[in-house]
């Protein structure tokens, strides 16, 4: 999902990867040295190679410890023991009569290269070069001492010097080129986050537009079709309910109150104001309107917010407005296990389900089953109405599904729907306990 390493991690990661490269190469060198010793001891018949194999084995074990626990102590221990091993191996390899005329040979180069590639504690190019230099210097000194003990000819090891040069080149290159500028300029991580944000924003905007479209369009069409005349009470109730669902109860209450006091703002031409300060939906007093403004959590349907326990008030009110009789099984009080926001989301989603039943199922009864189990609150909305095939739902009605699904999924819940034409529809909404 994300492209590569971010600038602040790239340097350390690269340093660790280079250390890893050194370790693998060091194990390869020690492995080959051990194999060489075994071949010489068995096929070559040189039994003195066995101690060499054992010494190389000790280096392998210590290096494994350094790789696993890259501490200063272990790194120093590896270098010290390795130096001793190189010294003893030099004595063994450079004994009088040896095939090698000088210390510049591949056999001695193998453990010495493994010393240089210790990697060591800490990260960063400078520290790595310091450890490698120590490995190189100690190895050289050990070899010098060893050859002095047996009286052979000392010559610097070409292979070891090349290996050391390679380590320095790789580390210096890494140190010079791993500036974060290029990563910052390329901005892949910023782009990745931005793309994610854009996708989420687009999705939410589309859902919000769809929800608005889905809910408001039928009212607009109804108003357009009605032509001039008195406002149908059912239409009025439907609008009131849907405004609450679309933008939240506070908007509807605030805005409607604004519409009353400031008829020119936002209201269509020809709109009349009652001008008496009364809210339009039920003859409540001016004081009541003020109270609504002061406390945005209050409802617009005239009930007071005395009862703060979560319930399906919105859903029942929607059903009542739509002329739908709802039979309830189970205890509504289980909504008390939900946080207020989650309970409100569930309430709004159930309300939308019931509105759908009233609008599309062609029945005036619905059944609501409420339950609590397995850490989840489940509400099933059932009707024996017309039913539908989800695939045949017109695309411009996606808002209804999204307005139910979006609410529930945002609360980490699930929506399952079964519908058969002519039999009815069951929607099961499940949300986990708790939430905000």
């Amino acid at each position, binding site marked *: 999902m994300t492209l590569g390493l971010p600038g602040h991690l790239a340097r350390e990661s690269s340093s660790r990867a280079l250390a890893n490269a050194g370790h693998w190469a060091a194990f390869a060198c020690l492995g080959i040295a051990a194999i*060489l010793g075994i071949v010489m001891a068995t096929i*070559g018949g040189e039994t003195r190679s066995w101690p060499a194999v054992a010494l190389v084995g000790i280096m392998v074990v210590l290096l494994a410890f350094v790789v696993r626990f890259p501490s200063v102590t272990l790194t120093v221990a590896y270098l010290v023991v390795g130096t001793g091993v190189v010294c003893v191996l030099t004595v063994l390899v450079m004994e009088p009569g040896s095939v090698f005329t000088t210390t510049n040979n591949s056999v001695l180069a193998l453990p010495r290269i493994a010393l240089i590639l210790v990697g060591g504690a800490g990260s960063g190019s400078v520290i790595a070069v310091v450890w490698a230099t120590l490995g190189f210097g100690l190895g050289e000194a050990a070899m010098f001492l060893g050859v002095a003990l047996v009286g052979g000819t000392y010559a610097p090891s070409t292979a070891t010097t090349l290996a050391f040069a390679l380590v320095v080149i790789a580390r210096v*290159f890494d140190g010079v080129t791993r500036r974060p500028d290029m990563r910052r300029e*390329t901005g892949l991580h910023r782009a990745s986050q931005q*793309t994610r944000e854009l996708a989420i924003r687009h999705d939410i905007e589309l859902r919000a537009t769809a929800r*608005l*479209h889905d809910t408001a369009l039928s009212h607009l069409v109804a108003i357009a079709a009605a032509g001039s005349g008195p406002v149908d009470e059912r239409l009025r109730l439907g609008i009131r309910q849907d*405004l609450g669902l679309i933008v939240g109860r506070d908007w509807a209450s605030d805005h409607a109150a604004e519409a009353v006091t400031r008829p020119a703002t936002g209201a269509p031409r020809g709109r009349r104001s009652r001008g008496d300060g009364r809210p339009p*939906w039920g003859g409540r007093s001016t004081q009541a309107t003020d109270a609504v403004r002061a406390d945005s959590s209050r409802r617009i349907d005239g009930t007071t917010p005395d009862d703060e326990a979560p319930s399906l008030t919105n859903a029942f009110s929607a059903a009542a407005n739509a002329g739908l009789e709802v039979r309830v099984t189970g205890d509504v009080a289980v909504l008390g296990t939900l946080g207020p926001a989650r309970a409100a989301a569930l309430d709004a989603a159930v309300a939308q389900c019931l509105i759908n039943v009233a609008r599309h199922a062609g029945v005036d009864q619905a059944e609501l089953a409420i339950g609590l189990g397995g850490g989840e609150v489940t509400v099933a909305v059932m009707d024996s109405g017309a039913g539908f095939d989800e695939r045949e739902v017109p695309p411009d009605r996606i808002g209804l599904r999204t307005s139910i699904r979006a609410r529930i999924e945002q609360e980490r819940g699930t929506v399952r729907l079964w519908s058969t034409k002519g039999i009815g529809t069951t929607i099961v909404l499940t949300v986990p306990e708790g939430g905000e």
Partner: protein
Amino acid sequence: MSGRMRLTQQEADPVGAITAYPIVTIGAVLAFSLAVAMTWVHWGEVGSPIAAVLALLLVAAAGIIAAVSATPARAPFPVERLWLVVTLSVGAAIAEYVSSIGNNRFLYDDFGPAVIGLLILSLAPFCTWVSAAMAGVLSAAVLSILVFGAAAYTASDAPVAALIAVNSAPVLSMSAAAAGYSYGIISETLAWQREANRAALHRDAELRAGIARSVQQGRVSVLGREVLPFLAGVMTADRISVADADRARELAEALRRALRAGIESTWLDDLAANVRLSRGIDTIIDDPTGAAADLSADQRSALTALISWLGDAERSQLIRVAFTNEGEDGERGAITLVTDVGAAAPTRRELDRFVAVARAVALRADSALTRENVTVELSYDID
């Protein structure tokens, strides 16, 4: 585990590989220099100067191919190219063997194994750890055959197995280093990606809440300012007038249009709007089928990075992005990005960086740079 085996640094961390590509040139130069130096050192053992020169030429060819193939403009580095480089360098080792056949007293001063190892090592950012290890083992196997031939003439009376072990050491240790680097950097990158994805999922939840709130004040509330007050007005009124009915019709149509526009637009339109607003660069998206929505997350990121970069620091005056279908059955999508160059025109080198990143996310990419325009053509397979 499978990710580590399949991925190269170039695929998992394209910018890292772009940073690393000069090391291939350094490695190639070192390999060639080593070959020349070693040939000069054991020139006394060379019986066939032609073979010796051929060996040097093969090393040079392998190095040039490695260095050229690793440049960002030629990304991604195909695995076949690794095998070509290894084959040429093994060829060089064989030529070197032929050049000193019968006179080669010490295997230690042969450059073949070291050159193969060096080239494999320098290509570590561009190959998987498995292919690096395999290249090393197979090369060592071929070199072992040469050791059989050379064993009779060497000064050492050690068993052939010991000579094989010694001769394989440079190539095996350096290919082990290449494999270790590739394995290490991929592990680090994948671990970071897992962490980043976890954080991104967590952030998405917060982002959703924040965006949901801002959307209320954004596009939807523009609609809301028209539609919802109207409905609220009707709700509070006693009668509906003819003007209300007309207005309702207009609003219904506007609402339909808004939804259609919302469905047809994609994240890229939002990005273009961002670039327009924040940088004042006209950014035109021509994506009639909403193909931008089909791009993968990484492809989107690469395109976003490119557009954001081109729209920044006066690199462009105008950006046009067009999506089309290619192929007989439209099985390939093409994105053509053309900009009118601004005051600070981008350089070819900078552009190649984005081309390499695009190629790392399964987009075929080409770029062209003139005084007036920057053109980047991307194409991808449609599933």
